């Protein structure tokens, strides 16, 4: 079933839509959550949360297609779960590794609760990423959005792992510089 048909089912509030979503995108969403959490049970729970989220947000904002919307939901759920359980400290997941890499350029320990600041940073990151060459942006997103291991990114993009690492390093340095110029660091 294609996205349009699934969305039509959702708008009719037909629960078959959720089954279709699970079948079409369940694996991708589960993997995304699993890479962040490193726990099968927690990842399953995030997928369930994602389905509830879709159901509650009818009609969903799917201007860019259903898949990105679902990914955003499941990632948000996984990150919330991670924050609740503070399991990022246990390490070992790709998300934890990504966290370490980002900590190199954002060394602060202080968390921010200010929504204004968060929106400001989000706008800055979005603008920064839009300004990157496409390939560099893809690598950054696969690593820090989807928490994909370097080797898998290399496989998907037909690059060597070293080239991916180098690209990530360059992007982090540029991001650091960009944040510094904007007074965000």
């Amino acid at each position, binding site marked *: 079933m294609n996205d349009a048909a699934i969305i039509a089912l959702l708008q009719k509030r037909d629960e078959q839509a959720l089954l279709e979503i699970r079948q079409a995108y369940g694996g991708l969403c589960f993997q995304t959550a699993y890479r962040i959490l490193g726990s099968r049970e927690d990842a399953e729970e995030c997928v369930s949360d994602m389905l509830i989220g879709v159901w509650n947000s009818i009609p969903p904002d799917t201007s*860019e297609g259903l898949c990105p919307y679902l990914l955003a939901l499941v990632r948000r759920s996984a990150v919330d779960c991670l924050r609740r359980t503070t399991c990022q400290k246990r390490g070992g997941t790709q998300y934890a590794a990504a966290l370490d890499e980002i*900590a190199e350029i*954002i060394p602060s320990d202080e968390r921010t609760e200010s929504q204004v600041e968060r929106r400001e*940073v989000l706008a800055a990151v979005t603008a920064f990423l839009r300004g990157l060459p496409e390939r560099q942006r893809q690598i950054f997103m696969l690593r820090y959005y989807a928490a994909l291991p370097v080797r898998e990114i290399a*496989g*998907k993009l037909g690059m060597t*792992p*070293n080239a991916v690492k180098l690209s990530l390093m360059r992007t982090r340095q540029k991001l650091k510089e960009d944040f510094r110029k904007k007074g965000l660091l």
Partner: protein
Amino acid sequence: MNAADFLELLSDMPQDMIADCAVLLAKPPADNTSVLMPRIVSCAAAAACIAAVSGIGYLLKDDGMTQQNSIPEAVMQETAAADASETVAAAQTTAVSAEAAAPGQTETSVQSAEEVPAETAAETVWIPAETESVTADTGNAEPEPERITEPEITGDLDLDGRFTHADRLWAELIFSAELDGVADELPLTDAQLRQCDLIADDYRSPLGEAEYNAFQQTAKLIYQYDVPAVLNVRDYLGQQAYYDDYIKQKEVNPWEDPRIDWEALGLPAHPTEAEFLSALDWHYALEHAESKDEMTSGEKTALRKKCQSTAGRYMEMKAALYVPQEPTPEQQACAGLTNIIQLYVRSMHEARYGEQAWSWFAEANFENVPLLTQDELLAKLEAAKEWNFRMNDE
């Protein structure tokens, strides 16, 4: 804001950016990831190379590693054979890696001799056919594997097919750049980065300290201790303990140098470390003098002058041992790179010009190395320096 906040924020990225990511996530891996494919190594070459390494072992056992020019004939023949055929040399180096590699040192697997096609001399990697076509092919015939030959990872940073002095200089440059946090500005190709990837997994660094040391040690073995030039960095790493021990035994302490006429300096023919230091280093001599607390200032001055005089004569003797030589063709060929490194070190370590200057510098030098003289390089550097100062003033 901290790193966790940052990663959390990415969940709220605009949908179009996530869409691109989603497409890639759903995409299967590309089929040309040759670095992940099994390698097939020539068994015959492995045997030849083991013989070469055994030859060096024979040398160590036989003469206690005191004669630098006594590489056994068998090893020399190996060297000559390798020189005659780059293909064989490449296969040998691969074979050494395979024979000596420690577990976990390489992500690729070495296959058995039976699997090696007779015509395979250099490293061969197996690339499967398109996944789709394999799936579609329901017949019994195995898809014919496509073979490609690619350069072995041997530390060949300048990609000329062998490990040379230039590779050591490249390592120096990359490592210095890494220390300064500007390695990502170096115009390194993927092939060069693969050559950096010898030890492994610190992906923040194109060339880590351990890798850099491996380059230095390998070069030392070849250029100072006459190990045949077929040795490469990967071979060195495969037998690191062995080679490090070899270097250690080759290295002679200054007071053990038989070329110095110690008696002419007023020392025993075979001085100890303490005797050597007492004669040449006046701080040491004073510290270890029996009557240190009773010495007058005149006696201390006399001791200092005596030590300085002996040290002066010792330095003259040492200097006389080194006859100035014309640079070898290899050194001449590397002169451009040496200049670059010197300029780089000067710009980064001393002046700290900044990223923009480095970009200019890299562009000026790496794109046009054979075309620029040292004066021209210096002029470029000066221009970059002025630009940077102007930017700082503004």
